[in-house]
């Protein structure tokens, strides 16, 4: 399902969404954070694009590891180590598999979602990117066959569910109840990542 080519396309499309929505992501972060999430993601995914476009890989795992290391060293802030960890765990979980099929990907996503939670000492319901990764990974595992359309819809719904949450992790937690009513920026960037994945798999 996820070939090296598709993984490359995934990163390419993600980068496009991130660049197109740089200002929007920053605005979300302005409301409940420090106005840099779009800037951070834009810097990071531009580097990811540069990296994976120019390199050649003999397995998906290797590509994902490059993504992880690039995000880790280019994004900074809270989202850098978290996205970095997610892709690192995903890379490890899918390692040794020639083709990353639906089940292997399920393991990869679960490892990623857990990695974020461990690194961030966070769980679902705290208004962070976990609220996209965690339900997405669970949903994936339960599917007989992944529908690209549903994948996008699940990610979108998960992102939107953060709107009514009160943040207890990340910078938005300073705002307490005032954080309610705003979409979590990290969940929004995660949504673009899965929207891009859906399109690649469609």
């Amino acid at each position, binding site marked *: 399902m996820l070939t090296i080519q598709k993984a490359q396309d995934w990163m390419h499309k993600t980068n496009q969404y991130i660049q197109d929505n740089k200002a929007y992501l*920053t605005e979300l972060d*302005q409301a409940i*954070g*420090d*106005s*840099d999430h*779009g*800037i*951070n993601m834009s*810097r990071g995914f531009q580097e990811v694009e540069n990296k994976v476009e120019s390199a050649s890989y003999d397995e998906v795992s290797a590509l994902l590891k490059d993504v992880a290391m690039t995000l*880790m*060293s*280019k*994004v*900074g*802030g*809270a*989202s*850098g*180590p*978290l996205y970095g960890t997610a892709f690192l765990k995903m890379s490890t979980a899918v390692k040794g598999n020639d083709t990353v099929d639906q089940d292997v990907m399920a393991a990869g996503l679960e490892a990623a979602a857990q990695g974020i939670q461990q*690194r*961030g000492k966070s769980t679902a319901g705290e208004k962070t990117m976990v609220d996209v990764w965690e339900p997405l990974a669970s949903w994936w595992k339960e599917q007989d066959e992944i529908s690209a359309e549903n994948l996008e819809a699940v990610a979108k719904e998960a992102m939107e569910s953060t709107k009514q949450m009160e943040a*207890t*992790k*990340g*910078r938005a*937690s*300073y*705002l*307490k109840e*005032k954080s309610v009513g705003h979409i979590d920026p990290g969940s929004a960037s995660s949504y673009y990542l899965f929207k891009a994945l859906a399109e690649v798999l469609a």
Partner: protein
Amino acid sequence: MKKVINQPNNVIEDMVKGMALANEAQWQRIEGTNVIRRKELSPGKVGIVSGGGSGHEPAHAGYVGKGMLDAAVVGEVFTSPTPDQIFEAIKAVDQGNGVLLVVKNYTGDVLNFEMAGELAEAEGIRVEQVVVSDDIAVKDSDNTIGRRGVAGTVFVHKTAGAKAEQGASLDEVKASAEKTITQVRSMGMALSPCIVPDAGKPSFHLEEDEMEIGIGIHGEAGTERKKIASAQEIAEELTNHILEDSGLSAGDEVVVMINGMGSTPEMELFIVNGHVNDLLNEKNISIHDTYVGEFMTSLEMAGFSITLLKVDTEIKQLLAEASEAVAFRV
């Protein structure tokens, strides 16, 4: 947005370049990184590394110098630096006796420094980390990530740096830093916002007659937004919050820092200092020393913070030790 810059997304590279040239006698940029390190380290000393997002200048490079930090890692604007950069700093300053990381309590900083520490430990470098959390505007409850690190961080740099310079072990240096952290408290306010260059827009909006109490150093919303009051009222409100939280009482001795957030003239900081003095005198809390100036800024935000550090013989002695850091010469 009115700024003296070139490309908004290149400010950090441009800044670090000019920074390294501003103090060539003491500073050296580690090639290929945004790390400013001491040119000559004190042999065998425990290393002290700090850093964080940019936009808080003179923090943290201004505190690099004999008697304070050995290296400062410069992140993007308001964005924690990445583990690889922090790792480079650790490697550069370690002299076999370990390195203390002084981190301000923000998720991003904690995560990135933590990962850098793991990288260093994997290479056999002993690393310890202390997390500064002096901003009492944030409730330290289970439902937040705890208090932010703000201007009080400078005193942690100073005491840890002095302790290390005396030849103390990593554990001893860490203990001094942690003691300082438990005894320092700050609270800030703002009159107008700052603009992250690459965002291009003000980080928040305040009406012409409004101020925000309890603001963070990245423009994070504070505890209360209200009509501007007099310098005396604001100074007393912030000081009283700190006193209440810290349990400082008659007979205690403190060091005072009045820190400008960026565009507030020193004139106003001195006015605030007068009122803080009056209030502390009234409460019979004695003032050992005072620092008025810009120590931990938020780009061009207007406003200030008050920091009180409770001192004892050890802390006073560590504060008095020589420092060659440009932004905190002793």
